[in-house]
């Protein structure tokens, strides 16, 4: 069996998510008390920097550095945003956090907000997560009743309001500047940067945006210290990660494992191995924007590392055996990106549309020489000229599939 390291999932299925007293009994809000009575924002920030925690939303940016830049900003009006948009296909880890331990998340939000000096925090929740929105609303009310939120929190000088903002169905709104646009009542299109949200974010004020899983690590770090956190995981990348393993495996689901765990172990030891005794064909790591991993790379460690051959992204892993139809997958990826391209820039708006059309022709076996040439151009354009990373995401899996499965895709006989 796997040796378990549990930070985020430690209370899962032990407590009732609708009862704050359950959470408190399990150790909840003790980190907040410690922060308020024994620490300063500067000291708490130091712990987070020591921990080596980096963002779990995809890019892996060091959390301590982000919080520090917002903390340093003068001005009284600042915001903290917890990113729970989670619209990456195959990802439902942030939703699982809310389902199982919403107070751990809320405690993290409160602490991070107070560290950066925000008096208002938003939780931006995927608009399809109706049940989770209700759980969070209840959690916020209960926390307010205990004075963990509100005026003069636990008798201190800190004030904080937490507001839940429901999205309206747009993948791009997970991108932080698009998310900010969306709260401001605009179309959810990304904004140019600089200025970065840490200086000029929501309503033009300094804003820290963190993924929900990142936030859920904070109470543990404050309680146990950054140094201890840094000993978990791999050398390059500290802590645990929620991996979501889906597709042709026996037990699909969300698993917490130390960073640095090998892909092969995740499939075998956590997800129960391949389904129906079939053989592994390939995996896609990091959701629809992720790279394809073949058998010889199964031994690679999954971690946040700028040089990694397999970027971890949000941690969603799709496992595929030979029963899958590669043409249907190409179509699935492209119809996703065509729909979700926000339309702000031409290369992505047109490129995803053309690739989607080509994917349909590939499926129907009606591909022309012109298409084959166009694919190359479009992939290059998506990779190099789009306004935000979504364009690049759209080219990743398609490009990987073409270089690895050319024979199958073009239906060549050899």
């Amino acid at each position, binding site marked *: 069996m796997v040796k378990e390291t549990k930070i985020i999932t430690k209370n899962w299925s032990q407590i009732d998510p609708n009862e704050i007293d359950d959470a408190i009994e399990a150790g909840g809000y003790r980190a907040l008390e410690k922060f308020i009575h024994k620490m300063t924002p500067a000291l708490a920030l130091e712990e987070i920097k020591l921990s080596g925690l980096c963002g779990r939303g995809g890019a892996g940016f060091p959390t301590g550095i982000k919080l520090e830049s917002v903390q340093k900003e003068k001005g009284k009006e600042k915001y903290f945003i917890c990113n729970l948009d*989670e*619209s*990456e*296909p*195959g*990802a*439902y880890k942030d*939703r699982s956090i809310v389902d199982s331990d919403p107070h751990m998340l809320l405690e993290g939000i409160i602490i991070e907000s107070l560290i950066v000096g925000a008096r208002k925090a938003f939780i931006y929740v*995927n*608009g*399809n997560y109706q049940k989770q929105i209700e759980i969070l609303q209840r959690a916020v009310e209960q926390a307010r009743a205990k004075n963990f939120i509100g005026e003069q929190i636990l008798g201190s000088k800190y004030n904080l309001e937490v507001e839940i*903002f*429901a*999205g*309206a*169905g*747009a*993948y791009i709104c997970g991108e932080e500047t698009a998310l900010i646009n*969306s*709260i*401001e*009542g*605009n*179309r*959810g*299109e990304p904004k140019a940067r600089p200025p970065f949200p840490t200086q000029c974010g929501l309503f033009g004020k300094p804003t820290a945006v963190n993924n929900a899983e990142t936030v859920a690590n904070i109470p543990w770090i404050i309680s146990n210290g950054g140094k201890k956190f840094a000993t978990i995981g791999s050398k390059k990348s500290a802590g645990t990660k929620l991996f*979501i393993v*889906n*597709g*042709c495996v026996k037990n*699909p*689901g969300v698993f917490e494992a130390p960073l640095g765990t090998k892909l092969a172990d995740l499939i075998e030891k956590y997800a129960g191995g391949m389904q129906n005794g079939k053989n592994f064909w390939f995996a*896609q790591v990091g959701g*629809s924007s992720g790279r394809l991993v073949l058998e010889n790379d199964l031994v690679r460690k999954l971690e946040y590392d700028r040089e990694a051959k397999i970027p971890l992204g949000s941690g969603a892993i*799709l496992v*595929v055996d030979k*029963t*899958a*139809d590669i043409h*249907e*997958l190409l*179509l*699935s*990826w492209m*119809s*996703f990106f065509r*729909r*979700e391209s*926000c339309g702000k820039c031409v290369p992505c708006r047109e490129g995803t549309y053309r690739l989607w059309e080509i994917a349909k022709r590939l499926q129907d076996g009606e591909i022309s020489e012109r298409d084959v040439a166009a694919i190359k151009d479009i992939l290059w354009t998506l990779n190099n000229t789009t306004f935000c990373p979504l364009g690049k995401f759209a080219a990743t899996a398609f490009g990987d599939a073409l270089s690895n499965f050319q024979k199958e895709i073009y239906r060549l006989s050899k």
Partner: protein
Amino acid sequence: MTVEKILLEFDAELKNLLPVLKKINAEFGYVGEEEAQKVADYFSLPLSKVYETASFYDLINTKRQPPLMIQVCSGANCAVKSAYKIISEIENQLHIKAGDDFNPNVKLEIISCLGQCGRGPIMIINKKIFTQVTPSSAREFLHNYM
């Protein structure tokens, strides 16, 4: 509930624009021009600005929806579990094409992952979610709505 009543629940701050539009959509099924104009007046915005925002989001309709809405997830997880076979089955059965607006009575829409991948393929008929759908079970479910 009337548009006016919905508006009164919210302050005229920009951060309330999207929540207001969602609430109107939930109440009326879509945000038509008449409703959008009332929103524009309330927020002191041009009508075009309200439409600009409303038309961007999947969960807000700017047109009346047909009485039968069928949605099938084509996320990669559902795709490896035969979602496309379900889509073809429905297209053939109802003589419609996914994404087309031509039929005023029924629409088939391909949607993105709902995070229910472990229980896929997923089909939604008029907001009711069906899991582990097969082409033949899809046909059966549809019969109950015809």
